[in-house]
C-alpha cells in the first residue's frame, strides 16, 4: 500500500483524511509529474494512464508501463520540433485528490520509470511520453558468468540493481530466506537481469515488482498486505470473472541424480516438479532460445540441500485452484500490488479475500478510474 507522506505521525498526518476523500461521492483528481533534467510538468499534464502487473503463476512478473500526455501550453516542451524531455529521462508520477483550500492535494507516488519514447503532435501541441518502469531497464541488461560473490537472493538482486544505478530492493523478512538461502549454482547462463531476479526470488517463494516510488519490492508470495479495503456494490462499477488462475502443483528440477528421501520414495526416481517445459533432454529448446523458458530458477539449484524452500514455497502459493477477477472502480490510489482487499458483492454473489496482482489506471483533471486484477485466496471450508 502506497501512502507517500500521508502516514499518521505524532505531529499529525493526512492518511485518514486522504482515505475518506478517496471514498467520497465527489472528488477532485490531482496529478503531480516530475521529469528528470526538466522539473515539474504537473501544470501541463492532460492525462496519465498506468499499468503495473505481476502474474498469477510462477512465470516471471510483468513490468509496469505508463503514458503521460502533456500539453505544451507555453512552448517549453517542444523546441526545434523536438521534445525537450528525452529518452531515458526519469519520470515520477503522484496521484491523489484535491484538498479544500490548499494549493496542493493529497498525493501518493503511483509510478516511477523512464521515458522510452517521447512523441510530438505538433497539430495539438501535445507531447506523449511512453514510460516504462525500472523493470524494463532490467530486461534490457543481460549478464552471465560467475556470481559466486552474490550467492543469496538479496546479494544477487541488490548487485544487479546497483549495476543499473537503482536503489536496493526492499525485502520482506530480509533476515530470513533472502539472506540465509544459498543459491546452489552461481554460474549463471546468459539472461536479462529481470529473469535472473525472477529466478532468485522464485527460488525462495518471493515475488518482485517495482512500486510507485520506483523501489523494488520483494514480498513473500504467501503473504499479502491487508489493506482493510472492502468493495461493496456501492463501490464497484463492474466485477468480471476473467478465468481460472494458472494451476501450479508441480515444479521440475533436473539434478541428474536421484532424489533423496523424502523427495523420492525410491532412489533413482526421476521426480519432476515442473511448470517449466524443460526436460533434461530439451536441448533443442536451448539451441533455439539459449535457455529454456522459466528455467532461471531451476538453474540456481545445485543439489538436494538447497532445493527445499524453492520447491515448497513456490508451489504452496498456487497449489489450489484460484480465480482471476477484474474489478472496475473509482480509483483508490493507495492500493498496490499484493494488497489484500475484500469483495462483498451481493448483486453478483461474489465474496471473499482477494489479492491485487494488477493495476490499470487512467487519470485526468476530471476523472480517475481504476481496474484492479485480483486473484482469489484459497478458501477452506
Amino acid at each position, binding site marked *: 500500500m502506497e501512502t507517500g507522506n500521508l502516514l499518521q*505521525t505524532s505531529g499529525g498526518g493526512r492518511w485518514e483524511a486522504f482515505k475518506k476523500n478517496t471514498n467520497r461521492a*465527489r472528488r*477532485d483528481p490531482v496529478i*503531480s509529474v516530475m521529469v528528470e533534467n526538466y522539473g515539474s510538468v504537473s501544470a501541463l499534464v492532460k492525462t496519465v494512464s498506468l499499468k503495473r502487473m505481476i502474474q498469477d503463476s510462477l512465470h516471471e512478473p510483468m513490468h509496469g508501463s505508463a503514458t503521460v500526455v502533456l500539453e505544451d501550453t507555453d512552448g517549453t516542451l517542444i523546441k526545434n520540433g523536438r521534445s525537450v524531455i528525452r529518452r531515458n529521462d526519469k519520470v515520477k508520477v503522484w496521484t491523489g485528490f484535491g484538498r479544500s483550500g490548499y494549493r496542493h492535494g493529497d498525493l501518493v507516488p503511483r509510478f516511477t520509470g523512464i521515458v522510452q519514447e517521447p512523441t510530438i503532435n505538433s497539430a495539438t501541441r501535445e507531447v506523449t511520453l511512453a514510460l516504462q518502469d525500472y523493470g524494463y531497464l532490467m530486461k534490457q541488461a543481460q549478464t552471465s558468468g560467475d556470481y559466486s560473490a552474490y550467492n543469496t537472493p538479496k546479494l544477487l538482486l541488490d548487485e544487479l540493481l546497483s549495476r543499473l*544505478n537503482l536503489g536496493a530492493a526492499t525485502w520482506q523478512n530480509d533476515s530470513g530466506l533472502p539472506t540465509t538461502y544459498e543459491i546452489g549454482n552461481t554460474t549463471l547462463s546468459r539472461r536479462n537481469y529481470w529473469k535472473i531476479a525472477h529466478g532468485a526470488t522464485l527460488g525462495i517463494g518471493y515475488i518482485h515488482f517495482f512500486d510507485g*516510488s520506483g*523501489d523494488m519490492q520483494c514480498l513473500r508470495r504467501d503473504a499479502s498486505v491487508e489493506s482493510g479495503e472492502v468493495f461493496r456494490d456501492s463501490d464497484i462499477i463492474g466485477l468480471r470473472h476473467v478465468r481460472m488462475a494458472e494451476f501450479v502443483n508441480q515444479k521440475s528440477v533436473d539434478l541428474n541424480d536421484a532424489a533423496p528421501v523424502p523427495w523420492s520414495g525410491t532412489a533413482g526416481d526421476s521426480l519432476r516438479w515442473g511448470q517449466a517445459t524443460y526436460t533434461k533432454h530439451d536441448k533443442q529448446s536451448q539451441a533455439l532460445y539459449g535457455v529454456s523458458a522459466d528455467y532461471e530458477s531451476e538453474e540456481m539449484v545445485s543439489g538436494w540441500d538447497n532445493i527445499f524452500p524453492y520447491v515448497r514455497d513456490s508451489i504452496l502459493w498456487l497449489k489450489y485452484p484460484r480465480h482471476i477477477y477484474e474489478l472496475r472502480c473509482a480509483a483508490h490510489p493507495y492500493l498496490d500490488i499484493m494488497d489484500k482487499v475484500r469483495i462483498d458483492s451481493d448483486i453478483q454473489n461474489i465474496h471473499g479475500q482477494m489479492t491485487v496482482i494488477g493495476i490499470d489506471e487512467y487519470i485526468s483533471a476530471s476523472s*480517475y478510474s481504476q481496474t484492479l486484477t485480483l486473484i482469489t485466496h484459497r478458501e477452506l471450508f
Partner: protein
Amino acid sequence: MAANFLLLDPQGYYVEFEDSYETSAWTGEDGTVAITLDQDAVNNEDHPSCMKIISTTDGKGGYIDVTVTAAIEHVVEFDYKITATQEIDWIIYDQSNAGNIASGTLDQTADWYGFYRRVTTPAGCTTIRLYLRAGTATGETFFIDNIGCSGNLILEDAESANYSRAFPRQANLHNMQRGNAVEDSSPPRMVFPLTWEYLTNAQFSELVKFIRSNKEAYFDDGNLPNFVELQAVYPENQYTFSDVTKPSAGSIAWYDTSVSLPNAESDFETTEFLTADYTAITADDSSSVDTSITTSSNVKKYVYHKLQFDISGAYVAINDIQRIKFKYVGECDDASGNDVDGVVVYVWHSNNWLRIGETTSKDKTTVDYITDEPVQAQDFVDIDDQTVTVLVRSRGHKGSDGNLTMKSYYLSLWINQDMGTGVILSNEFTLDAGGDVVEVKNMTDDNVLTLNTEYVIGDGRNNLKGMSEDAGDLIKVTYSPRISVVSSGSATDRWWGTATPTTPPRNVSLTLQTLNALTEL
C-alpha cells in the same frame, strides 16, 4: 459614464524590460537620474532583467507617458525592489489636464513586492504620465519590472437582461452496481456571455481590439467570487557553505575522480574540501573550487564534487519540506580532443541520483532547479539523516590528451523559500483602493493581519511577503481573484443598417471564458 464591467486591454502598455528600448522609453527628470536596463543580481531567477533607477536628487526619478482614453478605468501595476533606505514616490499624473490622479509612497525594502491600482482617467485626459521617484535618500537604487498601464475596453455596459453567467465543470460519473455514482471533476470555470443591442462604432472599435488580439485579458464584472486559500507557515532556510571549516561534522563537501557513474548515496566521499574551498564556494563570485585531471594514467575518469547540506537543525519531519530550490554555478573544460565540456548536476533523490540539469559550455553557467510541489520537494531530502546531497560531475571524462578541469563557484539550497515569511496563492489577485487583499488571518492565533505591518503584497500579485508569524501557524487569505479570460466561440457584430459603412452602429455578442479554475470559495 464609466462602465461597470472591466475588460483590460491586452495590448495596452506593458513591458518586462527585456530590451534596452524599453528602458530608453523612460525619461529621467533631470541629469541626476540614471535609468538603465539591469538585473537584480540577488533575485535574477525571478527578475533576470529589469529597469534600474538611481537618482542623486531626492524627489527625482523617471517617467513615461502612456496614451489613454479619457473617463474610463485603468489599471497601473508593477513589481518593485528598493535597496537600503530608499523609498519610491509614485504618481499617476494627468498630463492632459496637469493634475495628479493618484499618488503615494512605497517603503518596503530589500525584496520584490507588487503594486496595483485601479484609477479612472479624468474627462479630457488622453495622456497619463507615470512618475517613479526616489522618495528619501539619494544615490540608492530601486528596480522596476513588469510594469503596465492598460485601460478598459468596455465603454458601454452589456445588456443587463441577457447577462447570464455559467459555471461549467468538467466531470465524469462512475456509475456503481448499486446505482449510486462517484463524480470526479475538476474545479469549475466561469463563462460570461456579453451582448450589446447597440454599440456605436467608437465603442465597438475598442472592443474589437480584444477580439483581434487573440490574447487573454482580465475581466471583472464587479461580482466575482472571493477565493480563500490556506497555507501553514513552514521554517524557511537558505543553506550555503558559509562558515564551514575542514573537518566538518555538519554540512560537508568532497571531491573525487572516478571512472564510475553515480550509483550509491555514499559514492565519491573521498577527499574533503579544504576550508579555503568552502569559502570559495560560499558566494556567487569569481572564486571557485577547481579540480583537474592531468595525468594520462587517469584517462576515462570523471571529476566529481559532492556537496552535502546538513539540515538537521531545522527539519526532522518530512512534511516540513514543502518547497526546494537549488542554485549551482560551475563550469568544466575538457581540453582533450573529445571536447565534451560542461557539468551534470545530480541530487540524491529517494533511492537514486536524479539529474536536475546539465550544461554543455566550458564557460561559467548556472543550473537552477525549483519545485513548490511538496511531494516532489520531499524526495530530495534524506530525512533519515536530514541531509540534501548534490553531486556535480564533469560531463565528459578525461581524454587521452589535454586536461579535464571542473570549477564549482557556488551552491545554495533554499528550503521553503518565502513560506516562513509569506503565502503563495493559486491565482493572481486584484487589490482594493488601499492596495490590499480582502483579508489575511492567522487562524492559529485568531488574528487578522495588517497590510504593510504584518504582511506586504508580493511581486506578480499572487503572493504575500514580509510576514513574521510562527512556524506551524495556519494563514487564511481571502482575495478577489484577477480572472483572465479568452474569447470563447465566435464574436458577432450585426449592423443596424449600411447607411454609414465606415462607422456603422451594431449589435454585438461576445462570450468570455475564464482560464482560471475557481478554487475553493
